[in-house]
């Protein structure tokens, strides 16, 4: 099952051409950019007003594009401009942004990604959520670098986009259906060259951790699906069209060949052979696998859920996103139903050990339910874990709620709760609000068991046994997130004692966040990260070939740093305070009971010390605000469109 170099090369040599041709129509990247617009960009955005059923293309300044590149960074700048201060995340004034990037649509592997940016209904702060594959490629051909969706349609609507504009359609017949089903319906109607992103029932019902789905992939975190639902928008269908040309197509081809070669080597073997499911066994051994709502960091039933076991017993096939040579998606079959579904580490963790569930069939069933309903698996698992513990402690009954009728280890009970959340039925209506809001409603000290940061549930990285990651999780602009901070890499490095805190972690966390920011701006999949000796240097090389700009590694370092401050600037405007950069009470007051981390704890003071060091590394003030000097150095005012 492990793709060797030769197999990969032979199989994938034609993949790009084939997939790009199918998804992107004429290979636009081959032609040099036209006129004044830099390569890889359209130099404009598409604004769609759903209330007035109008659309328009608006210019994007080259300076803005150069200083943010694309993806989450460009999205942060645009959100700042388009979202009124204090906007209700589920109100018509909150824009939903679909943002592309300059590398998207080129032959560079793993670049078929787009970013959904909005003010999160889960956190009240910015969220930027990536998804990938064919829809991203099609979106790049829609004639704009970003689509800004504002207002609320008067009835369920779906949009049809092509390079020339937008058509509005009645979506009442699609309402209530899973995203995948809605997409199939629209593609049957419009043709196979159309790609669709859609919400499921959870998004329609404004579940605060609902997803947007396309091509089996999901923009998962932060409730972007609820924002789409709040606009009465079921789906966006995009006709594949030509993409902007690259400044130096020949240089780009040479770089793409080199990266592709590396992407088939040892640096990605883990993803090709097992995907992130490989993390289960390792994290369990390292006492970094949260279980039973973070009461433990090992899980007795982990062996049944390890990637190694799943691969041996029930793997069906391996898939990849469009234009990707890695192929990290591993599909497993259920021994119970015979059905098959994709599993990766976060889903395994959140619907397995976190809930005390060790039955792979139960986890697979829950994962498939989340996909069908349109639920973020991490927040769904985290919220249910909170509920199971609150129930165990009698807090639901004390607050006058009906019994939950589920317990830790009860896969069937979890499946029932997932459905009730998406339908906002019974206690599901409460859980659809996420763990923090639900805990505030239930009260009785249940906030102690809500494992979230800024309202976003923690991913499967135990902060007490990964104390650099603890900083990354605490300070993350969109809440607890393992994608915006890869600080766990520092914890897994020589010379770092992951079970202890020290001041160096602030800088390590900031550096990790910057590398992630760069990859999320270009955009490149982070599974390539070990394919580069220096992602800034190789990123600059790619940017020069695509855009024609004289981009340097130093410029990209500043751009990456700017991305974090842009998001922070938005959060500051929306009421961020230092108290938001912290970890759940449990993490800071309870020690770990098992495994190699038995007895390990993380104190509030230690976390504070590391966060202070992080602010200092960022050039921020001691209270976490952005200093005038840093604002000026990063030209935040210019990028945010404010007068300086």
């Amino acid at each position, binding site marked *: *099952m*492990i793709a060797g170099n030769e197999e990969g090369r032979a199989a994938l040599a034609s993949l790009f051409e084939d997939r790009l041709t199918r998804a992107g129509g004429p290979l636009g990247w081959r032609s040099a950019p036209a006129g004044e617009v830099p390569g890889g960009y359209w130099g404009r955005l598409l604004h769609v007003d759903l209330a007035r059923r109008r659309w328009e293309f608006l210019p994007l300044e080259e300076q803005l594009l150069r200083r943010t590149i694309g993806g989450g960074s460009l999205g942060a700048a645009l959100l700042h401009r388009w979202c009124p201060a204090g906007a209700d995340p589920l109100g018509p004034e909150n824009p939903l942004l679909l943002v592309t990037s300059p590398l998207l649509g080129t032959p560079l592997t793993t670049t078929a990604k787009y970013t959904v940016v909005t003010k999160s209904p889960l956190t009240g702060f910015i969220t930027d959520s990536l998804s990938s594959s064919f829809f991203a490629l099609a979106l790049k051909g829609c004639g704009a670098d970003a689509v800004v969706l504002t207002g609320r349609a008067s009835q369920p609507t779906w949009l049809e986009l092509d390079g020339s504009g937008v058509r509005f359609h009645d979506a009442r017949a699609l309402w209530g259906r899973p995203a995948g089903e809605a997409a199939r319906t629209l593609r049957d109607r419009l043709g196979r060259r159309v790609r669709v992103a859609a919400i499921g029932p959870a998004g329609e019902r404004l579940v605060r951790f609902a997803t947007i789905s396309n091509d089996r992939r999901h923009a998962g975190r932060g409730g972007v699906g609820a924002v789409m639902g709040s606009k009465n928008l079921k789906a966006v269908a995009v006709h594949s069209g030509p993409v902007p040309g690259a400044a130096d197509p020949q240089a780009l081809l040479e770089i793409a060949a080199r990266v592709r070669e590396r992407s088939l*080597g*040892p*640096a*990605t*073997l*883990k*993803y090709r*052979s*097992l995907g*992130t499911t*490989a*993390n289960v*066994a*390792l994290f369990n*051994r*390292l*006492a970094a696998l949260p279980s039973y709502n973070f009461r433990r960091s090992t899980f007795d039933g982990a062996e049944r859920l390890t*990637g*190694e076991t799943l*691969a041996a017993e029930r793997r069906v096939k391996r898939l990849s996103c469009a234009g990707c040579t890695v192929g990290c998606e591993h599909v497993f079959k259920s021994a119970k139903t015979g059905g098959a579904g994709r599993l990766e*580490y*976060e889903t395994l963790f959140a619907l397995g050990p976190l809930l005390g569930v060790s039955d792979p069939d139960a986890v697979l069933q829950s994962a498939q339910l989340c996909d069908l309903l349109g639920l973020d698996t991490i927040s769904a698992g985290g919220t249910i874990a909170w509920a199971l513990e609150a129930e165990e402690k009698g807090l639901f009954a004390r607050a006058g709620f009906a019994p939950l009728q589920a317990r830790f280890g009860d896969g069937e009970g979890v499946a029932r709760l997932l459905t009730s959340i998406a339908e906002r039925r019974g206690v599901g209506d409460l859980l659809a609000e996420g763990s923090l809001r639900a805990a505030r409603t239930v009260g009785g000290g249940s906030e102690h068991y809500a494992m979230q940061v800024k309202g976003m549930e923690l*991913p499967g*990285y135990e902060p007490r046994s990964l104390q650099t990651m603890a900083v990354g999780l605490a300070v993350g602009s969109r809440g607890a997130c*393992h*994608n915006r901070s*890869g600080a*766990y*890499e520092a914890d*897994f*490095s*020589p010379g*770092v*004692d992951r*079970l202890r805190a020290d001041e160096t972690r602030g800088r390590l966390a900031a550096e990790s966040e910057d590398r992630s920011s760069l990859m999320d701006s270009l955009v490149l999949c*982070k*599974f390539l*990260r*070990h394919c580069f000796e220096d992602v800034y240097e190789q990123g600059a090389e790619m940017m020069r070939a695509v855009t024609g700009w004289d981009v340097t590694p130093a410029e990209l370092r500043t751009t990456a740093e700017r991305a974090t401050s842009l998001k922070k600037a938005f959060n500051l405007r929306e009421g961020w305070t230092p108290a938001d950069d912290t970890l759940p009470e449990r993490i800071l007051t309870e020690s770990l009971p098992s*495994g*190699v981390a038995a007895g390990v704890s993380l104190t509030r003071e230690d976390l504070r010390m590391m966060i202070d060091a992080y602010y200092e590394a960022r050039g921020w003030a001691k209270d976490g605000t952005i200093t005038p000097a840093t604002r000026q150095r990063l030209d935040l005012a210019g990028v945010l469109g404010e007068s300086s």
Partner: protein
Amino acid sequence: MLAGGLSSRMQRPKAWLPFGGQPLLVRVVEALRRAFEHVVVVGAEGQDLPFTGATVLRDGLAARGPLAGIQAALIGAGTPAVFAVSCDAPFLQPALARHMAHLAEGHDAAVPRWQDRLHPLLAVYSTRLLPAVSRLLKEDRLRPVFLLDEGDVRIVEEDEILAADPHGLSFCNMNSPDEYAAAVEAIPVRVTFELFGPPRLLAGGSEVAVDVPRPALLGSALAALAREAPALVGSVLDVHGIPSPAYLVSVNGREFTVDRGRTLADGDRLLLLSASAGG
């Protein structure tokens, strides 16, 4: 495993000698198990042997020496050939045993020559030699070395041995209390690699134990791993055990390192994992 010797110079049964916290016989049988699917112990009639879980054959000819043991093994093991070793080889390297078995293919026997001496009690014998063994026993020519004149014998030379046992640990044996004391002093450090992700898939197992001569360094342990789990060579380790930059080691799940000069202690657990640990 030929355990039926009289241990006359040792003055106590070798099979029971405490070695690294276990009877010597158990230790050597464990090493054989890491090399072969099927292990049998040949003991003398009525001989008290530590429990190893392996089938015990009784040769009934204890006084006639190891050749009788080889005969019992060839008759009773049920395999076309046997790797015969005496139980006083406490540092037997499974990689060498496997290597020998491989080199013996197509020959009647394979015998290593180490430091200019042939070692017929660390050798592979085919059942094709059974008639010759019977005849030698009948003629009372009891030294196993006589068997080497009886067929097509593949001599395994020192450079071939070094590929699988670079320190020649397998050839350390002990016949007297002094040699035993010296061997105990020189017990290599035993560490266990725990394999995660691709290394586990490639090796087809989750753990590999290796012996590392003192002073035990991570580099030596990795080199031993490359010999013990050759499927890792290529994508995870090179032939010298140097890991690809895509992999790193955690010592006991606490400290991550790529320092091949890192000293190891007996019982250390070495986690071999992808450097892309995490998402």
